[in-house]
């Protein structure tokens, strides 16, 4: 039985899809059979971040409506054979995501895969609630910024009340914090909430801190999940986060300001 992981945040633009792509690739690279599903019906973008946009033929909604088999819609990643992508529909109405339909597809995937990653759309509408309904684990992506932290807290409330686990009185969803777009430099100058601040407000287990990095835009430009860029700080931070998710205890990196030369320190740069 696969473990369902929802990548959620409430607020848009904080890095849900980047995180979904990175996590899926990270888990698959470690040998776990992984599928990543785009729940953003009408505004699909996971295919683009994964670099498989030209290979989309059928989508999640086609499978829910039983128009095609699951295998016809799944796209196998060309870089990692353990990884599959299930794209969202670009045209259909998001109401097509029924509890029964999504549940049936997840159950079928569960027989074949180790991990099912659900990339949630922004907001608290139907697509977002469906992405989290069947979750076993939730990764709450948050930026160190007031509106993102507030929205994350709202999502925690929804996770604890409107999920299958909550409705069936099962063990609650395991919730993790992933802080992204972190800038140690700005934190040191008192301009940005620190990891400790955000953790204190949300009281969540910290899965990882992804530093602000040009590599993220670069990766999305190319359609290569940033985790594959092992030279970048963001890529390394995602690798650490995946390792931590799998149960290994790693110290958090990239939380301190990088040491700069005297020249750099005097004039900024």
């Amino acid at each position: 039985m696969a473990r369902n992981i929802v990548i959620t945040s409430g607020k848009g633009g904080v890095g849900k899809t980047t995180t979904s792509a990175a996590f899926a690739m990270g888990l698959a690279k470690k040998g776990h059979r992984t599928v990543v599903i785009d729940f953003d019906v009408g505004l699909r973008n996971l295919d683009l971040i994964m670099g498989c946009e030209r290979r989309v033929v059928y989508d999640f909604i086609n499978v829910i409506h039983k128009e095609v088999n699951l295998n016809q819609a799944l796209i196998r990643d060309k870089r990692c054979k353990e990884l599959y992508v299930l794209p969202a529909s670009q045209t259909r109405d998001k109401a097509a995501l029924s509890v029964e339909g999504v549940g049936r597809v997840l159950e079928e995937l569960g027989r074949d895969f180790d991990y099912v990653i659900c990339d949630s759309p922004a907001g608290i509408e139907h697509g977002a609630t469906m992405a989290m309904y069947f979750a076993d684990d939730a990764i709450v992506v948050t930026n160190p910024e007031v509106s993102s932290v507030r929205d994350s807290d709202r999502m925690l409330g929804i996770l604890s009340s409107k999920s299958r686990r909550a409705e069936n009185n099962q063990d609650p969803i395991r919730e993790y914090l992933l802080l992204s777009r972190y800038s140690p430099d700005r934190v040191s100058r008192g301009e940005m909430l620190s990891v400790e601040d955000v953790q204190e407000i949300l009281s969540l287990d910290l899965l990882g801190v992804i530093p602000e990095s040009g590599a993220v835009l670069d990766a999305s430009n190319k359609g290569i999940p940033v985790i594959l860029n092992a030279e970048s700080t963001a890529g390394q931070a995602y690798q650490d986060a995946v390792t931590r998710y799998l149960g290994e205890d790693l110290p958090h990196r990239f939380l301190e300001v990088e040491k700069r030369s005297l020249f750099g320190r005097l004039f900024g740069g």
Partner: protein
Amino acid sequence: MRLLDLFRKNRPQSASIAKERLQILVAHERMERNSPSYLPKLKQDLMDVIRKYVTVDQNDIQVKLGRDGNNEILELNILLPEK
């Protein structure tokens, strides 16, 4: 620290303002979220009973659910009109 920052020492640190605002807001929103769903209905019923005897405005009745250690406290505040 940059050289220029020396002259900006007295500026308030916006991160600490953000933290304080969030702590207050999040605590408030969690309280509301965790309050029982019957609270609005209870409030309405209480108002109807009170209105049988005195005329009070909707805004003059406040129902608050608080917590003191292990005890939940339902606080009812009614502002009676002056005679």
